[in-house]
C-alpha cells in the first residue's frame, strides 16, 4: 500500500479518538489537584474599588483567593503583544497594561478580576460567587465605529482609544490612479466579529515542584514552546529550563489557542503560592465566549478604480479594526501585515493604499482566527471586484480574468512577491465543475419554485508560512518564524520525528509520517511523530497560519536530508564502497553496479553498533536536527463558487451548490487536505450566514454568550462540497507545499455574500445574513418597487 506523498493514508491518530482514548487536558488529573474558578467582571468598564472575601468555613473548601495585588507582589509580568506596529507618524503602538489578574480596573465583561482555588470545581465556583467585588462603573464603548469619539477612556496610554493609525502603500500613486479612472466602485463593509469556538474549551493544569523548583503546565495550546518562552521571558515566572509546557491532544484551535492567556499563567503561577498543589482550570463554554480571543470585527470603506475596459487601476481603503480591551498576543499584526498585504488579491493592481486604525473597545481581545486578516482582505477584494463587475456589466468571471496576475514572480504594491500560481486554471476548473454555463437555467427553474437563486465567486489568495524571520522581524515581529525538527532513527530502524509543529486536528501524525515513509522507504507504522511537549521537543514555533506543512515539514525534510547523507557514509563503509557509488532507493542502500545492498534498518543498526566505520570521522548514532527558515511566504490561491437559493417568502437561505478549486502546491494527503477545505468553508459559511458576536451597546454585555445565542453552523446549514485541485509548486520550500488550513474560511464569506447579493439584487447585505436580515431586505426591495 502506498503511504508516501500524495497517498490517501488513513489517519494514524484516529484509533485513540474513535475509541475514547484521546488525552485532552481536562482528561488529565494530577495527585492532590485543586480547582480554579475565575471571578470575572460583570461590567464592561469599571474601576475595582475593593475585593473582599467572606469568612470561609471548612466545608467551603477554599484553598486561596488571589487578586491582582498578589500578582504584583510576585512581580509577575503582564500579557504581551508580540508584534510592534508603528503609526504613520512613526510613534509606536499604544499598548495598555494587561495584568493576569486585573489591577485597579476591569475593561470588558468577563475580564479576569480574581481567582478562587478550592478543593473541588463546584466549591471553587460557589466560592467565586461569594467574593465581594465593589466596582465603580465607568462609561464604556463596544462599537469600533464609535470608540474614538467615546467618553470611555479604556487605557490611559491610548487617547481616543486609538492603538495605532497605520498605512501601507503609495497614497499619491493611488490618488493619481483614481484621477484617471473611468469608473469607481465604492463599498462600505462590516466584517462581523466572530467567536472561535473550538469544541474543546481551553483548560490548564499548573503545578510547582518545590523539590526541584520546577513548574509544569498542561495546556490547550497550539504552540507550547511559545507559551513557555512568553511565561519565562515576559511573565518572569521561571527560566525556561525550570518550566515544562505540555499541550497534549488539543480539541481544535483555529487560532484561539495560539495566544498566551491569563488563566493558564495564573494556574501555573498560583500553584507555588498554594505550596505546590496542582491547580486545574477548565473553561465553561460561557467563559470561552467571554474570554477567548475573538476574530475579525472590521469596519471598512473601500474604493476600486477601473479604466473603461474594466482593468483595475487602483484600490484604496480605510479600515477600523477593533482590538478589544487589550492587545492579545498577535493582535496587532492581524489587521496590518496579515491583511493589507493581501489587498492585491489575485490581480495586477498598479496602486494600492490602505489605512488601518486599530481601536480599543470594551470587549474581549480580538486576535487571529482561522485566516487572520486574510479573510478580511479577501472579503474586501472579492466583494468589491464582484460589485465592480456588476456595475460595469462585465461577467464577473471575465472581469477577474482580465485582471489576473499572469506572470511570476509578481511584486504587488503591498510588500508581497507572489512566487507561483495559475489563477486562470483554478477559475476555469471551477467554472467547469460548477457548470457555470447552466446557471441561468437553474436560476429560472428556481424562480418557478418561488426561490431566488444567486451565484457568487471568491478568487482568494492568502499568504502562509509567514517568513523569513529577518523579514518579519523588520516588520515588527517579536519572534522568528522558522520551525525545528529532529529525526531520531532507533537502532532497529524505527523512527521518531520530534517536531515544533502542533497538531490539534490537522493529522500531523499521519502526514508527517508519510513524508518520512516516502523519503526513507520505511513502513509508515515504524514512524512516530512526537509533538506538544517542551521537555521532548527542543523548540518550535507551533501551528497556525497554515505553516505546518510549508515550514514544519520542510524542517523535517531538511533533517531527513542529513539522516540520508550520514546513512550513505555509513553504508559506504560497511559495504566497503566509495560514498559516490552508494544509491538510496525504496528504503535500501546499494552499491552501483553490484548486488551489494543494505536495508535502511540495517544501516541504522550499523550506525549504533559502530563497528564498521571510523568513529573519528563519523560519530556513532543516527539522529539529525534541522531548523528551517523559509525564504518567502507561500501563496495558496483558488476559486470558490457558491450558489444559494433564497425563499422569497421567509428569507431562509439554502446553499445549494459549492465548488472549491484550490492550488495548495504539493498535497501530501488529499483526504486530509479535503477535510481541511470542508471545515474551512463551513466556518466561512458560518460567518456569512449564521455567526455573529453581539455586544449590547447600552450595557456592554455579551448577548451571544452561549450556543443558544451564537449560531454555530450545523449539519443542515451546509451542503456537501465539490472539490477540485490545481497545482503549481511553491518554489521557496523543498516540498513545493503552500498550506491548506485556512483557505476555506478565507474564500467562503465573500463567495456566499456575492451569491446572496446576486440573488437579492442588492449591493450589500450585512453578515450574518440570517433569515431575518434577508427577509427585511426582501421587504425593503418590495416596498421600493411598489
Amino acid at each position, binding site marked *: 500500500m502506498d503511504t508516501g506523498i500524495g497517498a490517501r493514508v488513513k489517519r494514524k491518530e484516529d484509533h485513540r479518538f474513535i475509541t475514547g482514548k484521546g488525552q485532552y487536558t481536562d482528561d488529565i488529573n494530577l495527585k492532590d489537584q485543586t480547582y480554579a474558578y475565575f471571578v470575572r467582571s460583570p461590567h464592561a468598564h469599571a474601576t475595582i474599588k475593593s475585593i473582599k472575601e467572606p469568612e470561609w468555613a471548612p466545608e467551603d473548601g477554599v484553598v486561596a483567593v488571589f487578586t491582582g495585588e498578589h500578582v504584583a507582589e510576585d512581580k509577575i509580568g503582564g500579557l504581551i503583544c508580540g508584534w510592534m506596529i508603528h503609526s504613520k507618524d512613526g510613534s509606536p503602538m499604544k499598548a495598555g497594561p494587561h495584568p493576569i489578574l486585573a489591577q485597579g480596573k476591569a475593561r470588558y465583561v468577563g475580564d479576569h478580576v480574581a481567582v478562587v482555588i478550592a478543593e473541588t470545581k463546584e466549591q471553587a465556583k460557589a466560592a467565586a460567587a461569594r467574593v465581594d467585588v465593589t466596582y465603580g462603573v465607568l462609561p464604556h464603548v463596544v462599537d469600533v465605529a464609535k470608540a474614538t469619539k467615546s467618553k470611555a477612556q479604556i487605557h490611559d496610554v491610548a487617547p481616543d482609544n486609538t492603538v495605532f493609525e497605520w498605512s501601507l502603500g503609495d497614497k499619491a500613486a493611488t490618488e493619481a490612479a483614481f484621477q484617471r479612472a473611468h469608473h469607481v466602485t465604492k463599498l462600505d463593509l462590516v466584517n462581523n466579529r466572530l467567536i472561535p469556538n473550538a469544541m474543546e474549551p481551553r483548560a490548564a493544569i499548573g503545578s510547582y515542584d518545590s523539590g526541584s523548583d520546577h513548574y509544569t503546565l498542561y495546556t490547550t495550546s497550539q504552540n507550547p514552546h511559545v507559551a513557555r518562552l512568553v511565561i519565562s521571558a515576559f511573565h518572569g515566572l521561571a527560566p525556561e529550563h525550570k518550566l515544562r509546557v505540555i499541550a497534549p491532544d488539543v480539541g481544535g484551535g483555529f487560532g484561539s489557542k495560539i495566544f498566551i492567556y491569563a488563566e493558564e499563567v495564573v494556574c501555573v503561577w498560583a500553584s507555588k503560592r498554594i505550596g505546590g498543589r496542582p491547580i486545574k482550570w477548565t473553561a465553561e463554554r460561557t467563559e470561552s465566549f467571554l474570554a477567548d480571543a475573538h476574530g475579525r470585527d472590521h469596519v471598512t470603506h473601500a474604493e476600486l478604480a477601473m479604466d473603461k475596459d474594466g482593468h483595475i487601476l487602483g484600490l484604496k481603503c480605510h479600515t477600523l479594526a477593533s482590538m478589544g480591551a487589550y492587545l492579545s498576543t498577535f493582535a496587532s499584526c492581524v489587521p496590518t501585515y496579515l491583511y493589507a498585504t493581501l489587498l492585491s488579491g489575485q490581480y495586477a493592481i498598479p496602486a494600492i493604499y490602505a489605512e488601518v486604525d486599530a481601536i480599543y473597545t470594551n470587549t474581549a481581545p480580538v486576535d487571529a482566527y482561522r485566516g487572520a486578516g486574510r479573510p478580511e482582505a479577501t472579503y474586501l477584494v472579492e466583494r468589491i471586484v464582484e460589485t465592480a463587475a456588476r456595475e460595469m456589466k462585465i461577467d464577473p468571471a471575465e472581469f477577474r480574468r482580465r485582471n489576473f496576475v499572469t506572470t511570476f514572480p509578481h511584486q504587488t504594491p503591498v510588500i508581497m512577491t507572489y512566487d507561483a500560481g495559475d489563477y486562470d486554471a483554478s477559475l476555469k476548473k471551477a467554472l467547469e465543475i460548477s457548470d457555470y454555463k447552466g446557471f441561468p437555467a437553474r436560476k429560472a427553474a428556481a424562480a418557478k419554485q418561488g426561490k431566488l437563486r444567486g451565484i457568487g465567486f471568491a478568487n482568494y489568495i492568502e499568504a502562509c508560512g509567514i517568513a523569513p524571520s529577518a523579514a518579519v522581524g523588520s516588520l515588527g515581529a517579536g519572534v522568528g518564524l522558522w520551525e525545528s525538527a529532529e529525526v531520531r532513527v532507533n537502532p532497529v530502524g524505527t523512527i521518531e520525528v520530534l517536531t515544533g509543529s502542533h497538531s490539534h*486536528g490537522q493529522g500531523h501524525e499521519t502526514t508527517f509520517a508519510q513524508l518520512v515513509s516516502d523519503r526513507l522507504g520505511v513502513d509508515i507504522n515504524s514512524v512516530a511523530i512526537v509533538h506538544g511537549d517542551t521537555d521532548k521537543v527542543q523548540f518550535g514555533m507551533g501551528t497556525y497560519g497554515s505553516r505546518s506543512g510549508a515550514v514544519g515539514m520542510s524542517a523535517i525534510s531538511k533533517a531527513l536530508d542529513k539522516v540520508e547523507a550520514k546513512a550513505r557514509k555509513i553504508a559506504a563503509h560497511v559495504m566497503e564502497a566509495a560514498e559516490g557509488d552508494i544509491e538510496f532507493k525504496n528504503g535500501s542502500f546499494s552499491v552501483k553496479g553490484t548486488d551489494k545492498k543494505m536495508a535502511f534498518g540495517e544501516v541504522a543498526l550499523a550506525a549504533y553498533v559502530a563497528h564498521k566505520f571510523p568513529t573519528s570521522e563519523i560519530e556513532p548514532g543516527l539522529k539529525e536536527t534541522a531548523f528551517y527558515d523559509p525564504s518567502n511566504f507561500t501563496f495558496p490561491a483558488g476559486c470558490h463558487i457558491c450558489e444559494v437559493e433564497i425563499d422569497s417568502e421567509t428569507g431562509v437561505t439554502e446553499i445549494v451548490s459549492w465548488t472549491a478549486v484550490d492550488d495548495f502546491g504539493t498535497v501530501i494527503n488529499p483526504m486530509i487536505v479535503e477535510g481541511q477545505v470542508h471545515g474551512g468553508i463551513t466556518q466561512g459559511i458560518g460567518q456569512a450566514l449564521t455567526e455573529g458576536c453581539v455586544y449590547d451597546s447600552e450595557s456592554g454585555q455579551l448577548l451571544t454568550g452561549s450556543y443558544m445565542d451564537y449560531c454555530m453552523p450545523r*449539519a443542515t446549514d451546509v451542503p456537501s462540497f465539490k472539490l477540485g485541485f490545481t497545482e503549481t509548486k511553491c518554489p521557496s520550500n523543498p516540498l513545493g507545499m503552500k498550506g491548506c488550513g485556512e483557505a476555506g474560511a478565507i474564500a467562503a464569506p465573500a463567495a456566499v455574500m456575492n451569491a446572496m447579493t446576486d440573488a437579492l439584487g442588492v449591493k450589500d447585505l450585512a453578515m450574518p445574513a440570517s433569515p431575518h436580515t434577508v427577509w427585511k431586505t426582501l421587504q425593503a426591495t418590495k416596498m421600493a418597487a411598489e
Partner: protein
Amino acid sequence: MSAISMKVNGKAVCGAVEPRTLLVQFLRENLGLTGTHVGCDTSQCGACVVHVNGTAIKSCTALAVACDGAEVTTVEGLAKNGKLHPMQEAFREHHGLQCGFCTPGMLMAAVDLVNRKGKTLDEATIRHELEGNICRCTGYHNIVKAIQAGAENM
C-alpha cells in the same frame, strides 16, 4: 451523598454521588471514562452523548442519581473484543474526524440514529438528525459520508 450503581459498558459499577452530580461527571470523574466530553453548558453541542438503556441522551443533562440501575454505553464500550464497531471503522475510513473532540458524541448519536431509522439513510436525514451535535473541524461533509457507510455495515 447517594449510593448509585449501574452497568457501564457491560460492567457493574457503583459510586457515591451528590444529588447534583451529572451523569457525565460520574462517568469522567468517578469512573475515569474520559472519552465522553463536555463541550458546552447548554446541552447544545452533543460531545457528551452516551446511550442509557439503549437510547442516546446528552449525559450533561442527566443526573447520575436518575441513572441509578441503568445500562450505560459510552464510546469506550462501542468496540467489542478489540474489534472496532462498524461506525468507528467508518469514521476512520471516511476521515469523519479531525481534532476528535466531538467524535465520541457523534459516534454515539450516529449509532442511535441507525438503531432508530435503519441502515439506509439519505444525506438529508443524516444532516437533520445531527442537529444536536456540533463539529467545528470537518464541515460535516465526511461525517455524513461516514454515517451513511457505517450504517450500511451495522
